[in-house]
């Protein structure tokens, strides 16, 4: 079970927003900064964090929509970041993405059948006369009817469009699917349908997920292990059970305590963080969370904590655990 599918080593993505006269960068946004973790085969790795923490950028690097500034991505023992564009492309079909916005991520001028067939044709996976059969099979897998393949995206509801996006990702038989906020734009009753579909497909096709979300309850439902990000840094990685029963990083504790619980009889004591997430252009020195932390130590402002293993399956980046 614990076979490593993908290893991410010291990955960074810096966006240069402004340069001086000589082309030297003056304003740099460090969206992802020195992040390392592994994704095991067959697991769902959840990635949580607030807006602007770099979780989507990280997902896009993995599917090659952004190229990393530093760091390595090793996929099935092959270092993807060392490949040239042409070699890299042959790995693209193994790593697919499901996007957040089911309205923006489907071409409005293509029928749903064409949308799903396109990746099969581009990758030359099947002879032309077999493509339609495969499209029908994929539509059935995601719970749509075969006659719907001739319709256009605007004829579908949000939940159905997300199913089309899932079918498109499945079309090339990927090994890893990056689900970027795949259910957050959907209504609650539809969200449950899509989540259950994702769980079923994972079992059926032996998929691995990187599940990016800001909703901690959704991540908990689907993931085996969870990583928490804050301002481009990974602050805690552990198994789902451990994270929800024994969160160590103060940020994780605050995130968990901020989730409204559905029991009006039980008013819980809540950690309310002060202030807002600082700008990733000028993150605070030392620990990036120290400006909002409620357990701040003297050294937090001076030294940046590193991600350290505190128990066999639990890593945390905080001076409290050194």
């Amino acid at each position: 079970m614990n076979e490593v599918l993908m290893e991410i080593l010291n990955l960074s993505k810096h966006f240069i927003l402004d340069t001086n006269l000589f082309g030297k960068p003056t304003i740099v946004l460090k969206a992802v900064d020195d992040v390392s973790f592994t994704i095991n085969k067959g697991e769902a790795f959840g990635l949580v964090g607030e807006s602007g923490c770099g979780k989507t950028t990280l997902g896009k690097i993995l599917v090659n929509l952004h190229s990393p500034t530093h760091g390595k991505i090793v996929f099935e023992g092959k270092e993807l970041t060392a490949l040239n564009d042409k070699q890299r492309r042959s790995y693209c079909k193994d790593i697919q993405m499901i996007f957040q916005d089911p309205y923006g991520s489907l071409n409005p001028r293509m029928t749903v059948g064409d949308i799903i067939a396109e990746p099969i044709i581009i990758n030359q996976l099947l002879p032309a006369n077999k493509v339609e059969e495969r499209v029908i099979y994929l539509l059935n897998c995601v719970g749509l009817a075969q006659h719907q393949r001739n319709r256009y995206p605007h004829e579908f509801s949000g939940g159905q469009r997300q199913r089309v996006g899932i079918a498109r990702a499945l079309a090339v038989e990927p090994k890893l699917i990056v689900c970027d906020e795949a259910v957050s734009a959907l209504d609650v009753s539809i969200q449950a349908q899509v989540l259950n579909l994702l769980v079923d497909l994972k079992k059926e096709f032996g998929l691995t997920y990187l599940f990016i979300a800001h909703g901690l309850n959704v991540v908990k439902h689907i993931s085996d292990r969870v990583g928490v990000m804050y301002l481009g840094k990974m602050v805690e990685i552990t198994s789902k059970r451990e994270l929800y029963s024994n969160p160590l990083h103060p940020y994780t504790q605050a995130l968990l305590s901020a989730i409204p619980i559905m029991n009006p009889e039980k008013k819980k004591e809540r950690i309310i963080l002060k202030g807002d997430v600082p700008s990733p252009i000028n993150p605070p020195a030392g620990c990036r969370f120290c400006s909002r932390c409620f357990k701040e130590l003297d050294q937090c402002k001076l030294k940046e904590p590193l991600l350290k293993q505190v128990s066999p399956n639990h890593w945390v980046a905080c001076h409290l655990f050194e």
Partner: protein
Amino acid sequence: MLMEVKALSTEFKLKRGTVRAVDDISFTIDEGEILAIVGESGSGKSVTALSIMGLLQNPGRIAGGEILFKSQDLNKLSQKELQKIRGNRISMIFQEPMTSLNPVWRIKDQIMESIMTHMKVSQKEALARTIEMLDTVGIPSPAERANDYPHQMSGGMRQRVMTAMALSCGPDLLIADEPTTALDVTIQAQILELLYRMREKFGMAVLLITHDLGVVSEAADRVIVMYCGKIVEEADVKSLFARPLHPYTVGLLQSIPQIDDESDEPLYMIKGMVPNPLRMPRGCPFSDRCDRCLERCSQEMPKLQDVDGHKVRCFLYDVVSEGGHAQNE
């Protein structure tokens, strides 16, 4: 009783037919209470708020009913009379704090505009009140930040500014339309706490419109569940979560992944999707998605009825017809 909505219906006349976004709803809001309206997209919760505020845009119009605010029917007032109440006695905060603030005006000018429209104060007094309000909603160094433009603030700060503006004239009723939906969880917690604190301080009633049952359970006193423009259930918050009656409410509660749930069971699913508003089913709007659908559900619309102070629109709780049902069998 602060507000009473009686048999309100709102329609949108489209080329392809008429959509009844709000269909014959009645409810009351007491002074100082937080009433939540929950529902999914298209359930009519936002249209209800816009109808109360008189902010419906063409082709929307109120097709019938009364909106009594302190025994005065808002629907019968002229725009001029309504303007005296809107922003003053009833104010509103919106979902998108970026698009609902004017990007080319300083924060202080936007708040002062509403104060000076409704209160007889000098510019100096209005500015003092603006800074005081910004301080109350927790904006750090309010005197300086009052000179900022909206783009200089974060989402949470903008929502605080909106709240300060809405509360600046000391309204009796605050309508909050998805006030936390666009915000991160840690900021959502801050804003909910702020609403709570403001209610304690100013004693206004709040009509909280949301799709998030978690927010409802944290903040509300009483809850209305809407589906397809109809009220399907109404109860105080404790009894709604302890004993939800309508199959839709039950399904919604079960389909949300719980943070304290340790099982790996698949989530409960409400099958299908919301019907097309132009082609509503004849009977109960939820009948084609309901697990406990009876034969008559697709034929006639159930009435909203009282079950020990807990109102529900479902034949399963039809006391009168249960007798009739027994006779049929």
